[in-house]
Every structure is written in C-alpha cells, then in structure tokens.
C-alpha cells in the first residue's frame, strides 16, 4: 500500500497530478493485454487499475462492457488477473489497483483473494458494487492491512455520507465525475472542482476523479481540480479501434504520454473559491 503513498508524495514534489489508467485485463487477449499494460506503465502511467472482467458490468458503459466481453471470451479468470499483476510487479513499482465487481471476488474466496492479491503485489482493490454498508463482510476476512480498499464517492453522495466514506477509506478516494456509467459524456468541471474540494477537506487522502474523461483538455481541467485523473473507456476505445494492429501497445503508450503531459504543472485547486482556467493552454 505504501507504493500508493510514495507515488502521491513523489508527484507532489514534481508538481504533477496522478495519471491513473484503467484497462480490462485479458483484453483483447492475454499476451497482448500484458504487452499493453507493461507499455503503459513504462510510458509513465502513475497508477494502474487492472479490470477483472465480469459478465454483468452494470456500472459500465458499452465500451468497457465490450472490453469485458472480449476478455471473458478469451477465458480470463481472476487468477489470470493476479498472474498479470505478479508479472508486472517483477519489473515495475507502479501501484496496481484491482478493479472488480464483487461476485468474482466473493466466489474466489475473500480470504484467499486477500492473500493472493498481496502476494501478487497488488496495492489495492476497488469493488464497484460493494458500498461501505456491505464491505465489512470482505475486510473482516482479511488477515492484514496490506491491501487498500479504494472507496467511491458519487455526485449524489450527501455530505454526511461523504464524511463517513472518507473516514473509512485508504489509499486514495475515487470521485465519480457524474451520474452515469463509465464512458458517458457531459463533464461539468465546475461541479467536479466543488466536489473534489469538499472531499479533500474531509479526507486526509488524495482524490482521483474518473468517468467520462477522454481528451487531453479534459485531463488538464480535472488535474487542476484533483490529485489524480482516472481514464478508462478512452483507453479501451483505443484498444477496440486498433484491435488488428501489431503496434497496439505502442499506440496505448503514446496516449499515456499525451495524457501525462496534460497533468504536468496543473495547479492544485485550493478551497478559496478561485478557479484555474478550465482549459490551460
């Protein structure tokens, strides 16, 4: 878990915000997926969210639904995602967050999952459909505290609930940018900034914002308001559009570098009410 803290500490000294990339493990197939995530990490991704495919991804839009379906068609299981994690960990210190729906973890076994995830070198887990009301059943079966449970905060989350979630979170907080599924359009940077400020005031943790962020302008605007920017569907769309290409991994790595350039020098948004320009030149 200290890899997450180290990353945010280092970014602060570099005056940068975290670029957090999500891709579904096993998409489009096992070998190419490994090439893609390795290349993305090598290109400077700050945190990797590795998606565990699920048959019924109710919080995801069409792009990630199709990524999940491609991965499952190739037979990807949770143990395969853990194997990818372990292999990446051999030569990378990039924090790895396993991103999953609850059922694959529940069926794998909650204690076994903890042991195997930690052994593989995962730093945290984000379980989309496991709100604080239900997560004790998982964390009470964990024998240690070496895996951060990344909590989600939504635009619909009331203040008092936000405070409770912030108090029980670890690693970083994932602020959902809008009401909708992953990959939707219609970002409201003003609202994102206000939510991020509020959340940061409540929590002693970095706040990363995700859902619907796709252009470098989006990245720059969100980076100005938060500690990190999460990109998922845009990477998955790139994979989908270049499925047949030999240089698929290089295409993804290039995109990582472009996004990353947009996170440099983004001013930390204070809670004073002043706003950075939404689209810095």
């Amino acid at each position, binding site marked *: 878990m200290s890899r997450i803290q180290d990353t945010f500490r280092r970014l602060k000294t570099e005056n940068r915000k975290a670029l957090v990339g999500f891709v579904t493990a096993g998409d489009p197939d096992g070998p190419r997926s490994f090439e893609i995530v390795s290349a993305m990490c090598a290109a400077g991704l700050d945190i990797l969210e590795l998606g565990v495919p*699920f*048959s*019924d*991804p*109710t*919080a*995801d*839009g069409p792009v990630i*639904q199709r990524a999940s379906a491609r991965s*499952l068609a190739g037979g990807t*299981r*949770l143990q395969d995602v853990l194997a990818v994690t372990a292999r990446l960990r051999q030569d990378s210190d990039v924090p790895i967050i396993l991103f999953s*729906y*609850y*059922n*694959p*973890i*529940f*069926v*794998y076994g909650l204690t076994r999952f903890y042991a195997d995830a930690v052994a593989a070198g995962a730093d945290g887990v984000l379980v*989309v*459909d*496991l*709100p604080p*009301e*239900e997560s004790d059943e998982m964390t009470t079966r964990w024998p240690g505290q070496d895996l951060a449970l990344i*909590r*989600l*905060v*939504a*635009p*619909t*989350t*009331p203040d008092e*609930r936000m405070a409770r*979630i912030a108090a029980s979170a670890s690693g970083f907080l994932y602020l*959902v940018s809008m*009401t*909708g*599924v992953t990959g*939707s359009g219609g970002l409201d940077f003003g609202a994102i900034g206000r939510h991020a400020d509020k959340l940061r005031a409540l929590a002693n943790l970095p706040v990363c914002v995700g859902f619907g962020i796709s252009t470098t302008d989006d990245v720059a605007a969100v980076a100005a308001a938060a500690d990190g920017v999460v990109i998922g569907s845009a990477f998955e769309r790139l994979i989908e559009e270049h499925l047949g290409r030999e240089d698929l991994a290089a295409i993804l790595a290039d995109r990582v570098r472009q996004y990353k350039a947009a996170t440099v020098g983004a001013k930390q948004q204070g809670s004073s009410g002043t706003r950075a320009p939404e689209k810095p030149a």
Partner: protein
Amino acid sequence: MNAEPTAGTLPDDHGHFGPYGGRYVAETLMPALLELETAYRQITPKPGFQKELAALLTHYAGRPTPLYAAKRLSDHVGGARIYLKREDLAHTGAHKINNTLGQGLLAHWMGKRKLIAETGAGQHGVATATTAALFGMQCHIFMGIEDIRRQAPNVQRMKLLGAEVVAVDAGTGTLKDAMNEAMRSWVTRVRDTFYVIGSVAGPHPYPAMVRDFQQVIGIEARRQILEAAGRLPDLLVACVGGGSNAMGLFYPFVDDDIAMVGVEAAGSGIATGKHAATLTAGSVGVLHGSKSYLLQDENGQIKEAHSISAGLDYPGVGPEHALFKDTGRVRYASITDTEALAAFKTLSRLEGIIPALESAHALAYAMAEARRHAANEIILVNLSGRGDKDLDIVSDRLQKEPKPS
C-alpha cells in the same frame, strides 16, 4: 385485514435475510436506495397511502381476484382438489399490477415523475406502463431483444400505453440483460427517476417492498380458502423466476403448518444445463444488488438461463427465497418446458383458462403432486398470469413437438 397473521421480522435494518439480500450497488445508487428505504418505511404504512392503494386495487385492478375450485382439472388428475388463485384476472393479466400500483403510488407520494422498469415476459413492463399512464408519469421499459421477439403482443401494449420500450441487445437479450440496462439507466437518471423492480429481487428495500405489495395474493387466498373449504390448504404451489408471485402467495401462510413448493423452470432439463432453476442447481453469489443463489460458473461469471417462459428466464432469485430454501420452509422443485406446455394445454381444454407459461410450470407440478394426495386434500396454485401473450410461442412449439401416439 388487521387480524391476518404476520410473518417474521426479516429483513434486518440493512436489508439482510440471514446471509442473503443486502445492497450491492455502485455508490451513485446508494443515496437513492436510502431515500427509497426511508420513503418505504415512512410513507407506505400511512393510513392515507394504504387507503389509496386499497382503492386502486379494488376499483382499478379488480381485486380481490377469485379463488376457483378447478373441478374438471381435479377430476381429470385424480387425488387432491386443485384450487386456482386467479391472478390472471387482475387488470393487465397478471399479479404484476399489485406491485406496480404500490410502487407507482409510492413514486407519486415521493414526487417522482419518471418510472423505469425491466421486463422479461413483458407482464411487469405492461403493468408499469399502465401505472405510469394512470399517474401521468413518463415511462421507459427495458426489454431484451429476444424477449421482444417472443412476447410481441406485450411490446405493442406498452407502446399503446405511452411507454418507450428500450431494446437491449447485450448478452442473451433476456431479462438479466434488461435488468443490467435498467440499472445503468437508473445510475444516469437517478435524481428524478423511480426504478420499479418487478420481482422480490434487487437491492434492499426491493425484496421486502415487493413482497409487501404482493402479499395481498396470499392474504386474499387464505381468507377465500377458509370460506370455500372451511380449512387451510395442504399445499401451496407457485412458479419462481425472481419469485414475486410465489412470495406474495406464500408469505401470509409462512407461520401456518402447511407445505409450500416453489417451481422453477427446468428448461430442456436440469442435466442439459439449459434451465433457469437457480435454487435447484445454483450457488450463492451477488448479482443485481443482492446476495442470493445464482446460475454461475466456478469463476463467478453469470450463466445464461434457459426457459420457454420469458418470465422465468432469469439466473437469479429473490434473497428471501434463498433463505426459505436453506431453512427448508419452502421446497423448490422444477418443471421442464415440455411439462409446462402439457399443463398449458390441459388447463386450456379442461377449464377454459389459458394460463401464462410461467404459471403453467406451477400447474404442471401441482397436477403431478395431486395424484399423490388423497381426495380430501387441497392444493392451492397461484395462477399468476394469463397466457394470451404466449400464443405465438406455444403454437410454434406445439407444431415442432412430436405428436403423442
């Protein structure tokens, strides 16, 4: 109605039925579920709400529905006497209206102007569209493309009623996929939209709330059988997809010393793997917001369900049924497509009642069971819906079936 028996105190404050139930949803939906739970606890017990709902059920939905002694069917089968709770005679042709009027009225009291719902056979979609029309609300119904194909008359009905039918072509294009899409839609429109779930499934408070709105079936049936036969039945039988008509019938009898059987869809047969018998052949997991039995593989991926009946074609089941299975309070059996079709024909010919294919599963089980019971025993079957919607699929299937010699 005040003297009716009350069953247990579940779910607990967090919506758990023992190890089952709960609220396994994305954070965006949690505040909406908490708001709904508060409204459900505070508004639905109010005398004003109950009075309005009772009036709707009586004057609009046509309740109480009759309890009918199926004499020719009983004589034909031999053994126990079979009574049918005629939910097929409720407005819109199935028990689903009991729940949609309840949830629609709650949405109205909460000031929500938009309803969304998932549907399989289309009965819940039609009932929701009907309710939306009645309250002057906007309505979107999510339905799998396979179900749109096989339940075309209900699609026409929903459109006539002013609802927009959203075709879902993900997965197998059936009820599970429609529910996925309805949940995605709800995440997007959560601030002003009420999601009308059609079964005793989904996240808390739906399993409890839908049970409460459906238990009018069992409350009436209990009173009616006491009037008609002077005693309680020996066995209750109802089909189980998500399980709302079964829960509605069973719940007011839970504390009585009588047997109950929930009948799942065995599709082409349990051994073929092509079935929807979640409690009979599934394992515990989390889908669509609650923990219950599921059809899934060893990696926790949800499997496709198979049934001739679109309303039973679902790989999950309500969490309270999961608890009833574990405690043994209810026994769960299964009936194949072929057996259900035979019962469909038999009831049509002998009683002049064309049952829904869903209900035909319960009937098929009850007919087989009646033979094993004495003539002074009583089996009460929930005839949860009428079969007009199934005419195409049944005639199609009967043409393909080998003629009995």
